[in-house]
């Protein structure tokens, strides 16, 4: 690295520079709707993702009523819903089992594929990654736009599926065959316009979108890193996104294959997933047979497990950035963090059968998958340990992003740790498909990932808008959410241990085992506090929504680097102009040079050259060498 290249440290004149860049004005449509600018696309993804999250949440709030008060009419909105979702969704406000199953399946699908992936991967990836690596844009801007529009189409198809005869997909987000293979079939069965088929078609679009995105991300990170930004100088967030992109790239296609096959089963009367000799409702199915129900599960979980790491890795990345920034010191064990993420990415391809323990798997194979599943938990342990240790010796400040991060760590911890009993097939024998599993992964995705995403929104909002979201309302958003999340999901562990199963339309009301008392309430009664907590958390989101939209126009104006961070995105003007940087950035140092000894500023940005004095000091103190 040549320290001679002088860089004028950014300042007021950036804003002027920023204006200079807005000479060539594009029309509104090209600029904000059909834009190919990575920042605009990122924001488009972000807004859609948030809206879908909220939608997925709303479906769940309806389900929670049915679980707490089975068979009773949903007050107020209940009598209007039939007009939206069709007469046999909730006749006079009472939810039917079909509709409950639709809601469950779509809650899962929407939350994962239309909410978290677009927000965590596509939105933050698109907006932040090019800025953090000092690139003017993604390598393939047009492909990038195509990716977004494929996603939009997929999303619309998924939504439309609610309104076709028979309602949306009912087979769970896992769409196990034969159930979803034969679902909706019967008199008046339309090949395409039915829930399950639309689910499959919509998915093909979502997969296309993810593949295009993944190709773009990886190429960008490989090809467009700024001068001097070596691999070991990449912000942890970029690493997380890099691995995530690979997971999507290589894990999605087999599911795409499976989806094509299920679509063939439904439309072209093939039997990829149907064995011979099935009797449905007392009458034999007229099919060629010769298929295998388990084939679907293998192909689905080959994506399914990498997918769950797609849900968590970006959150890890965000947490890392914010943690370093607010403890004012480098991430502890940067190398081991990077290494762990790579190992997770690699192993996540060979653990999938831990979702299939009870499908009649012999001892050899299950031994193999138990081993890999436990192995993959180790890098997670390393990552969390590194995060905790990073805090030691810091000077911790609690702004809103940091609050979410502080909550993320233990919440993910609970979720992750409860994965361990599930990893032993003999223990999972008891826990499989109970609310214990539901609680396990919700602790990771809801108070885990979602909190991480909130943190990210609050943290990068100033970069996108030049304004900051209100700290006060941020806290009003944070505390109730934290409390409610735990009131929702902790009792689910109890319900699970009682033996209460998931996907129970009646919330376990009809079962003796859920009549057992635990901690003062019966398993079934626990549904009530859970549901109320869920609804209260719904209210707790209102301050966020208002804060979010209000701050875009009226939030407190801030400079380009309000958090006094070190990574390259903060050297660009806020909001960054088309082309991002005023002067091509050059990186001279590692990503987290906080509190370098012998400096008055407690943060040193990556593009600040190393002066001779400092270099000699570094030589003396290897601990500082990055």
């Amino acid at each position, binding site marked *: 690295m040549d320290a001679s290249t002088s860089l004028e440290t950014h300042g007021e004149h950036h804003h002027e520079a920023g204006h200079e860049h807005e000479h060539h004005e594009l029309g509104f449509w090209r600029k904000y709707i059909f834009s190919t600018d990575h920042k605009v696309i990122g924001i488009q993804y972000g807004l859609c993702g948030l809206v879908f999250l909220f939608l997925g949440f709303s479906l769940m709030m309806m389900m929670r009523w049915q679980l707490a008060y089975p068979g009773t009419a949903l007050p107020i909105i209940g009598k209007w819903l039939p007009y939206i979702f069709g007469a046999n969704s909730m006749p006079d406000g009472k939810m039917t089992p079909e509709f409950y199953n639709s809601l469950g399946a779509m809650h899962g699908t929407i939350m994962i594929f239309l909410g978290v992936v677009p927000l965590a991967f596509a939105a933050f990836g698109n907006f932040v990654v090019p800025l953090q690596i000092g690139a003017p844009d993604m390598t393939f801007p047009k492909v990038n736009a195509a990716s977004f529009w494929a996603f939009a189409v997929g999303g619309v198809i998924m939504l439309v599926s609610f309104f076709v005869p028979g309602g949306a997909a009912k087979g769970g987000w896992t769409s196990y065959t034969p159930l979803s293979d034969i679902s909706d079939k019967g008199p008046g069965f339309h090949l395409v316009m039915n829930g399950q088929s639309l689910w499959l078609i919509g998915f093909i679009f979502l997969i296309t979108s993810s593949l295009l995105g993944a190709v773009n991300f990886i190429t960008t990170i490989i090809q467009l890193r700024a001068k001097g930004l070596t691999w070991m100088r990449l912000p942890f967030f970029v690493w997380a996104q890099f691995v995530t992109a690979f997971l999507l790239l290589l894990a999605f296609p087999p599911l795409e294959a499976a989806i094509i096959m299920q679509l063939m089963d439904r439309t072209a009367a093939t039997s990829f997933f149907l064995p011979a000799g099935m009797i449905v409702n007392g009458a034999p199915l007229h099919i060629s047979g010769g298929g295998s129900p*388990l084939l679907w599960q293998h192909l689905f979980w080959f994506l399914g497990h990498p997918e769950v790491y797609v849900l968590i890795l970006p959150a890890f990345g965000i947490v890392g950035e914010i943690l370093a920034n607010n403890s004012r010191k480098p991430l502890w064990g940067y190398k081991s963090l990077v290494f762990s993420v790579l190992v997770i990415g690699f192993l996540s391809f060979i653990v999938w059968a831990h979702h299939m323990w009870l499908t009649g798997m012999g001892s050899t194979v299950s031994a193999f998958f138990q081993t890999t599943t436990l192995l993959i938990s180790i890098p997670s342990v390393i990552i969390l340990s590194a995060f905790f240790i990073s805090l030691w010796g810091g000077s911790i400040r609690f702004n809103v992003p940091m609050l979410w991060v502080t909550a993320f760590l233990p919440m993910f911890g609970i979720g992750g740790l409860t994965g361990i009993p599930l990893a*032993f097939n003999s223990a999972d024998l008891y826990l499989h498909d109970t609310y214990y599993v539901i609680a396990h992964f919700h602790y990771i995705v809801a108070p885990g990932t979602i909190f991480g995403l909130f943190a990210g929104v609050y943290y990068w909002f100033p970069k996108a808008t030049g304004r900051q979201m209100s700290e006060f309302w941020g806290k009003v958003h944070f505390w109730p959410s934290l409390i409610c999340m735990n009131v929702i999901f902790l009792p689910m562990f109890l319900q699970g241990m*009682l033996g209460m199963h998931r996907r129970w339309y009646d919330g376990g009301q009809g079962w003796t*085992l859920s009549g057992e008392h635990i901690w003062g309430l019966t398993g079934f009664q626990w549904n009530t506090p859970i549901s109320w907590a869920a609804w209260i958390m719904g209210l707790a989101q209102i301050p966020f929504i208002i804060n979010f939209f209000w701050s875009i126009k009226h939030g407190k104006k801030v400079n380009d680097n309000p958090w006094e961070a070190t990574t390259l995105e903060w050297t660009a003007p806020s909001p960054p102009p088309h082309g991002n940087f005023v002067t091509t950035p050059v990186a001279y140092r590692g990503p987290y040079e906080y509190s370098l000894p012998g400096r008055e500023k407690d943060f040193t940005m990556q593009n600040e050259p190393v002066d001779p004095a400092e270099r000699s000091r570094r030589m003396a103190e290897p601990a500082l060498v990055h």
Partner: protein
Amino acid sequence: MNSLALINEFLGQPPNASEHGFQIDHIIEFAHWFMAALFIGWSAFFIFVLIRFHKSRHPKADHAGVKSGISTHLEFSCVLIEAVLLIGFAIPLWAKRVNEFPPTGDAVLVHVVGQQFNWTFHMPGPDGQFGHRNIDLVTNSNPLGIDPNDPAGKDDLVVLGELHVPVNRPVIIELSSKDVIHNFDLPHMRIAADAIPGSLIPMWFKPIKTGTYDVVCGQLCGLGHYGMKGTLVVDSPADYQAWLKERAELAGPQNAPPAANQQAPGAPKAENPAAKPEQKAAQPAASPSGQ
């Protein structure tokens, strides 16, 4: 045996009623102790750090941070514990469950067939021979399509929804399904396995407590999934014989159980008529309205 399982009871796990069950409880138990240790340890550290290094108390962060490799030891011990749980308990236990089935002689043999939305139990009767089943013969009165002119099938018992087994004798179950994937789950027996159309999955357990237990369907199988209940009654040997006798008489010459037992315990409550098996059976073949 189960006394060790403190956490499990604390978390509400119902008492175990099968011979091997306590081993499964032990693994869950150990796992939870391990998790608790990690969680409490780290939480303590976490909270301490958050207070100790709050910027009001520690205005100037130090760049280097922790130098000792303590975390490495910690992670290594995690690996160790998990390895012990895995190699010491989990793998052998599973191997025993699936590789060492008890000899057929002294065991009770049952074929369990799942369908939307109830369980059908097929027992070989005195001769210990299962009658040949043929799907072309399936009717409402002959739900399994047992071949009437197969001598082995003459004395077979076919029971819907409620299975009786004698206490302290191993039960070997062979699982299959007529339509979609179900999961035959006996929480109190700490045993479960999928019932998959087109395949036959064996499982076994040995009940050690008499009583009446839930049989859960642990796999989403359609709109009646939540109501797909079965009952497992563990009888004293005497009661069991009595029950067999009674069933045999009910069954009479031909093995079809009387309509009385037809109404499936799995049928969901009245608020959703569509799910009643009687009605569903009436519908045309190609319409699995169960979906």
